[in-house]
């Protein structure tokens, strides 16, 4: 066997000293030289942040503190391990993978206890062989170069490796979806399904329906898929997303309930349940879910200060003011010197003190919230800013409310969903259509800018058009229409004029920005495809 552990640095994460020794001896018997040990999750994270490992063998159940899955999530989230590292999650029962039903982070391998040296070695050998085979694609992806990853993946597919063929097809379809090339992905999934009914291919077709805005069709697909595969947790998440897109929050709630019964450890799913139940007015369910979120968040990289404020707001709604204030206090302890947390805490406090009849403390909290809000500007989450606005209106601080609203509307003028949230908030406090004039005016200004920019572009004045949009984006940051227009012009510029790396980098940055601010994936996909094809044809020429 050509594969050896001799040159690999290995980390063992295991709380039981007998097993630690057993694993260490096993690794030494397999010619390992560098073996580091950690007996809990935090220690593991600490070692990983200091040195890099080729192999991490991590037990799922680590006693108190983080579990193995949480170690993996944090390691990936903080880039403590890269695409070359083989992460093995060790557990007592075989069905752990399904029970965890992780939303985003899967280990490279699950290993069931007890196992012997031969088993470990063959799993590691297989994983390293696969990683080596996929290295070029993984590297391109890690560097954020989608078009290169697609090119390399196509090249590997041509190599005709039988064992890797299906794995590559799956990867290729996922890459196509990321690039918005839904036709290519659909074609791959159909090709796979012709040979065999495989859930991931069926799921992929549903995802494409969802992205193409055929929500009803996507839902039908997801539903029949979970009926046949009750442990396909990913499918519940997609089903939830699809219902959310249709504003069917009671369906969102029941799907998530179902998923959580099978896999109660997922903090992200609990969060979604809490929000959905809250929206539906099922305060009891929401409270239970928020409590789980706070509890699960203790050791999770996915924790957020909004978990606490969500719970506190819920207490405020159920007139449990004491509980609300207690939760906020706990939050301040966990998130010291954290402006967003303080903003959340102050906003809820203003509300709670008001219902308690303490005008003075309420006023004080609100002023603090407004102050932090204006300092954070666009960095504060927009739903949180809306809450501050609402509290301001309710406390007769209209000037402050309008100030924040002005910026919010400018930043999100082409996001109908947000504007509807805003309208709903205002109707809720008896201010129907309050901001309609501002919204329409801002929209018209945007249209005027766009028309002017497009006209310049059509005259071939790319630079002038870009300058105009660049200026507009100062007052309307995160404006999707402007970003999309800029991308269109720049890609066209790259096509008709000589290739220039600086422009190329700017396009990549803009694509990332577009993704971040949530430009419609289909719209963005078409542009990305155009860009990928352009780069491919330039690569051929060069």
């Amino acid at each position, binding site marked *: 066997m050509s594969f050896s552990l001799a040159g690999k640095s290995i980390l063992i994460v295991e709380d039981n000293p007998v097993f630690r020794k057993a694993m260490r001896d096993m690794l030494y018997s397999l010619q390992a030289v560098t073996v580091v040990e950690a007996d809990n999750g935090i220690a593991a994270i600490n070692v990983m942040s200091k040195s890099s490992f080729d192999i991490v063998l991590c037990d799922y159940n680590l006693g108190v503190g983080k579990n193995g899955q949480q170690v993996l999530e944090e390691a990936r989230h903080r880039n403590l391990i890269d695409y070359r590292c083989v992460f093995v999650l060790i557990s007592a029962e075989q069905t752990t993978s399904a029970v965890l039903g992780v939303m985003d982070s899967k280990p490279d391998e699950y290993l069931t206890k*007890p196992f012997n040296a031969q088993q470990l070695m063959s799993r590691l050998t297989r994983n390293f062989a696969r990683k080596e085979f996929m290295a070029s694609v993984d590297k391109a992806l890690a560097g954020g170069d989608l078009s290169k990853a697609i090119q390399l993946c196509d090249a590997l597919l041509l190599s005709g490796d039988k064992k890797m063929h299906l794995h590559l097809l799956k990867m290729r379809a996922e890459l196509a979806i990321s690039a918005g090339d839904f036709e290519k992905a659909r074609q791959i999934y159909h090709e796979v399904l012709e040979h065999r009914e495989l859930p991931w291919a069926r799921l992929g077709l549903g995802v494409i329906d969802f992205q193409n805005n055929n929500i009803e069709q996507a839902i039908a697909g997801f539903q029949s898929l979970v009926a046949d595969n009750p442990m396909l947790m990913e499918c519940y998440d997609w089903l939830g997303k699809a219902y959310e897109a249709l504003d069917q929050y009671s369906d969102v709630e029941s799907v998530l309930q179902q998923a959580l019964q099978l896999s109660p450890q997922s903090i992200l799913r609990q969060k979604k349940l809490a929000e959905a139940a809250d929206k539906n007015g099922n305060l009891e369910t929401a409270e239970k879910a928020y409590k789980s979120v706070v509890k699960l968040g203790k050791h999770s990289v996915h924790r957020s200060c909004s978990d606490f404020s969500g719970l506190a707001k819920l207490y405020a709604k159920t007139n449990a003011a004491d509980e609300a204030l207690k939760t906020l206090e706990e939050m301040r302890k966990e998130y010291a010197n954290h402006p967003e947390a303080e903003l959340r805490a102050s906003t809820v406090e203003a509300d709670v003190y008001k219902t308690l009849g303490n005008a003075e403390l309420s006023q004080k909290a609100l002023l603090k919230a407004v102050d932090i809000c204006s300092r954070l500007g666009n960095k504060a989450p927009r739903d949180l800013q809306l809450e501050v606005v609402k509290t301001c209106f309710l406390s007769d601080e209209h000037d402050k409310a309008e100030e924040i609203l002005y910026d919010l509307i400018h930043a999100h003028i082409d996001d109908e969903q947000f504007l509807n949230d805003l309208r709903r908030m205002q109707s809720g406090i008896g201010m129907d259509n309050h901001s309609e004039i501002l919204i329409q005016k801002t929209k018209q200004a945007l249209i005027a800018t766009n028309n002017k920019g497009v006209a310049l572009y059509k005259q071939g004045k790319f630079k002038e058009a870009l300058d105009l949009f660049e200026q507009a984006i100062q007052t309307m940051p995160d404006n999707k229409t402007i970003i999309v227009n800029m991308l269109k012009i720049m890609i066209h510029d790259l096509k008709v004029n000589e290739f220039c790396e600086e422009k190329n980098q700017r396009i990549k940055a803009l694509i990332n920005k577009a993704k971040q601010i949530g430009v419609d994936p289909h719209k963005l996909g078409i542009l990305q495809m155009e860009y990928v094809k352009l780069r491919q044809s330039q690569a051929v020429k060069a």
Partner: protein
Amino acid sequence: MQTHPKNNDLFPTILASTVHDIKNSLGTLLELVRQTAAKQDGPSAELNQLEFEAARINHSLMQLLVMYKVDSQKFSLHIEECPVIDILDEAIHQQARLAGLHNIDLQVDCGDDEMCYCDNAIISNALAAVLNNALRYTHKTVLIAVAEEDGYLTIAIEDDGAGYPPHFLTADLNDTAELDWVSGNTGLGLYFVSVMAGLHKNAGKNGFVRIDNESRLGGARFKLFLP
């Protein structure tokens, strides 16, 4: 009025914790066997027996847990395309010490790029339990052979032992309603593998299991059919 509040929510958690605990004990036990063997320059017959029993407990426990999940509808197969040799290797490695210790000649007849669609973790574990039995009852040789038959992929495990007792041979392994034959380790192992085989479906066909004493080695023959 309900006098005994049903607390079904807790049972899975308690079951999982219990399994975890037993598995930890088993792991410790196996590790101590290994350390003791190392101290006394190689394993004795008693230590081998200990290791064999531990492997048996492990299989039974794993099967129990999977069957519980199937029963409570918390189970679905995870079907993937996988090289058959990887599945066999996993099963063989699980039993590697046993084969080595008993000086059994374990032969494998499987092409390197033979592929199949199945839940490879489930199938390799189920095969490991069958293999464990074959290794126990054979004289000298065990053969694992992969072939294609009527559109099924078949994995046969054959030995040169005394063969299956008559009550197994007359039983219909794929009729899981008639369970007279399910007793003892062999029966449980066969039951498990036939249920798991039956869950594998493709193009209107289900997987199944067949046993007889027609082994080319002269003893028992087990055959798994995957659609």
